């Protein structure tokens, strides 16, 4: 009965223990609002890590500030809960220090496209081999409901009390224009597909950006709800050519009927490759990396 007492997952999740997935979950029970899309995302990451069969100690989950903040605490991997908007450069530092690690970044639309927006182009163009799972609820959840750069026009929030009039950003188009080597979209209301996409994103060698449409059930009852998204979300056309950046951009412009799936993928040298190349040209040789010794 003491409120300081942690609540253990064990009592609740005995039935899925057999899967091995629980091995990637810590003993802390998530504190998100019931129905929040972050639950599907947690499940998706756990499932994907288990499917790929990564060792817990070789995975680092990096979060910034937002409702995603606490994500790493619910995982049995290394984690770094950093600052608002700084996930990507911190993750870059981790990867440069030790490129044997699998680095997964989780964050919200404000964290990514407001305060953190300056970092994305550079991670994308350098093809840093990390996975960026962006949870887009079109609002600032953790700070209790302010307008965000992906909020729709007309959305009323505590800081847009007379409706939002600013044109929202189009994250997928942006990432495609930055030269990201893997760009996809998923929807928290389709947890199975979401999990598959997360697995693919993590497996991609290079920077992978997965945009996840996720309702904030607490602070958005009108706009980006499960109900509305269930109506509008579609799949990418069967014949979509995900090696064609312009075709991907064309699909990304159709914001009223957002399509889930893999928009674009390409294989090119990662930042690790580049740094190795520099060492070779300098006449040095790649040394043992941090944490390895």
């Amino acid at each position, binding site marked *: 009965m003491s409120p*300081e007492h942690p609540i253990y997952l064990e009592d609740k999740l005995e039935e899925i223990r057999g899967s091995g997935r629980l091995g990637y979950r810590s003993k*802390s029970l998530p504190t998100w609002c019931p129905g929040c899309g972050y639950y599907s995302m947690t499940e998706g990451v756990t499932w994907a890590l288990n499917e790929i069969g990564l*060792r*817990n*100690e*070789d995975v*680092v*989950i*990096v979060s910034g500030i937002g409702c995603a*903040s*606490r994500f*790493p*605490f619910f*995982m*049995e*991997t*290394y*984690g*770094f*809960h*950093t*600052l608002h908007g*700084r996930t990507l*450069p*911190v*993750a*870059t*530092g*981790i990867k*440069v*220090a*030790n490129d*044997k*690690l699998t680095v997964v970044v989780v964050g919200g639309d404000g964290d990514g496209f407001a305060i953190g927006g*300056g*970092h994305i*182009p*550079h991670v994308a163009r350098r093809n840093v081999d990390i996975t960026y799972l962006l949870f887009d609820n079109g609002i600032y959840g953790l700070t209790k409901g302010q307008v965000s750069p992906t909020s729709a026009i007309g959305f009323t929030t505590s800081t847009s009390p007379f409706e939002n009039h600013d044109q929202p950003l189009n994250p997928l188009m942006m990432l495609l224009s930055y030269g990201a080597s893997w760009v996809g979209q998923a929807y928290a209301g389709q947890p199975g597909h979401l999990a598959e996409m997360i697995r693919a994103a993590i497996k991609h060698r290079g920077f992978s950006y997965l945009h996840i449409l996720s309702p904030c059930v607490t602070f958005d009852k009108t706009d980006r709800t499960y109900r509305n998204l269930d109506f509008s979300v579609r799949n990418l056309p069967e014949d979509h050519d995900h090696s064609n950046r312009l075709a991907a951009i064309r699909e990304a412009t159709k914001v009223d009927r957002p399509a889930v799936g893999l928009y674009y993928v390409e294989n090119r040298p990662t*930042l690790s490759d580049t*740094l190795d190349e*520099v*060492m070779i*040209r*300098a*006449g*040095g*040789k*790649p*040394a*043992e*990396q*941090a*944490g*390895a*010794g």
Partner: protein
Amino acid sequence: MTSIHTDVQIGICGSAGDGTIAVGDILKRAMARAGYRVIAFDEYPAEIRGFGKCVARTRITTEQVYSMKPKTDVLVSLNDAHAIPHAEEVRDFGAVIYDSAPITMIDEGWHISGHLNPGQLPYGLPMREISEQATGSSRSRNIVALGFVAGLYQLPRQAFIDAIAAKFQTKAAEVTQSNVAAFNAGYDNGAEIYRFDKVEVGPPARRTRVHDSTMMTGNAAVVRGCLDAGIETFFGYPITPATSIMERLAVEMPKHGARLLQTEDEISAISATVGAGFAGARAATATSGPGFALMSEMMGLGVMAEVPAVVFVSQRGGPSTGMPTKTEQADLNIAVFGGHGDAKRIVLAPTNVEGCWRCAGRAFEMAEAYQTPVVVLLDLYLSNRYETVVFPNKNPFVRDAWKRPTQDNANEPYRRFELTADGISPRAVPGDPHGIHTATGLEHNEFGRPNDLSAMHFQMTEKRHEKLNAALKHPGITIYKRFGDTGEVDVGLLAWGSTFGETLEAMLLARAEGIRCAAMKVVMLSPLPVKPIKRFLKDCKEVIVPELNYEGQFANLVSGAVGRDVIRFNRVTGKPMAVNEILDTIRSAAGKRKLRKSAA
């Protein structure tokens, strides 16, 4: 301090197009090759292009000194309009050398010869003509002037010829030949025609063999410190006067299998540095005031999450963009106090070039040992000035300086932030199966889980502060040091950073005048070595704190810590502090002014 036998200071002044800096460079390299000790600092114009003023000053001694002399012995003018304001730097009976037949016409009143004080010796030299005769072109008049000075002092000719050859080694052989010819013509002129009669340029007292001592700038010493400490990652963004750290590392690090990335800004640089530190790498970044201001928030994460990270900050004139090519010591406040919350970090400020190397190397050890960001505070003067340095034969820096978890409690959950007696918790990094944890910028418990209960916050705050005190006893680095008279003194000087050089010089001159005085340098500004400072202050009737900022940032820091008032001696000229002005302050503090006047 040992007595200094040879002590000559040569200044060369001209416009950016006159090759002023180039001959200054040859001079200091030649003298270092010849086994002398050198300190040299150049003034540049702020603009990229144009004909702004350059001044190259070189002081040549037998024992290493750490400041310019109050007065220059010889000033070479390559452009009288620029050099006139500097004539007053020349000592009585010192020489001013100028072109007696310059290329451009000079208006009346703009000849430097008309601006000398009585007692200063004018040497009009037909630099252009000599150059034309020796090389067929007037372009080498700067080298002629250099040769002339070398000749006047009978400095070792071969060392100069070697230095010239080294300078032009990538160019065609004729370039070297022609410059050597110009040099020799100047030398002969100086040695045979104008030769100084009674000047004392003895041979280097303790003749160090070539390569025993290396001549380098503060920034180059930082780079060597980083490499000697085994730096693994560097993330940076260009900014004067820190850029050359990154530029040199960019060449050197990949040779050693280390990784450098120029990030999109300073926020990214410090974030990546903290990320790399979290992952277990020796990680650093370098910047100046404006960039460091941008790093403020992420520094706090380093403190909270107990992540090692080294940040070199080379100060320039402020506030804001300020004076990018001028020196100042006004970033102490932000270095020590610039974080929100109780965000104490280690701050080191070397006082000379050797100290740059040492502080750089030890900073990595400290960051790891105490699990915290370490700021190494330089300034433009120290970053850019040259000194001869003798490095120890053995690389003294320790790798892997941190406490790792043992396997003793392998069954218990890992306490990343375990509360221990010394505040240091065994630290695991990703890859270690026994140390899985999440680090966070939120207040947390021993496991690293968010926790904001009063008692936990107090214990963790205490831990983060008190663990740093061990740094005051870190091996292999001088945290503070007293010089001059022992016991009670009339005047004590307390100084930090590059200004300590001028302070020491002034203190020695004051002692020579019979004033009982002592000077203490403080290298660690946070945590501050309060006890030794208190002890020192107790010995001093008057305490002077000279520094290059407006309000006395170090004076405030010391005063706040010891609860005693001090004499603030502040200058914001964009230049190194003048030894004479410190000396005057000592004199007046010692109440010796009258005494001296009557004696004069």
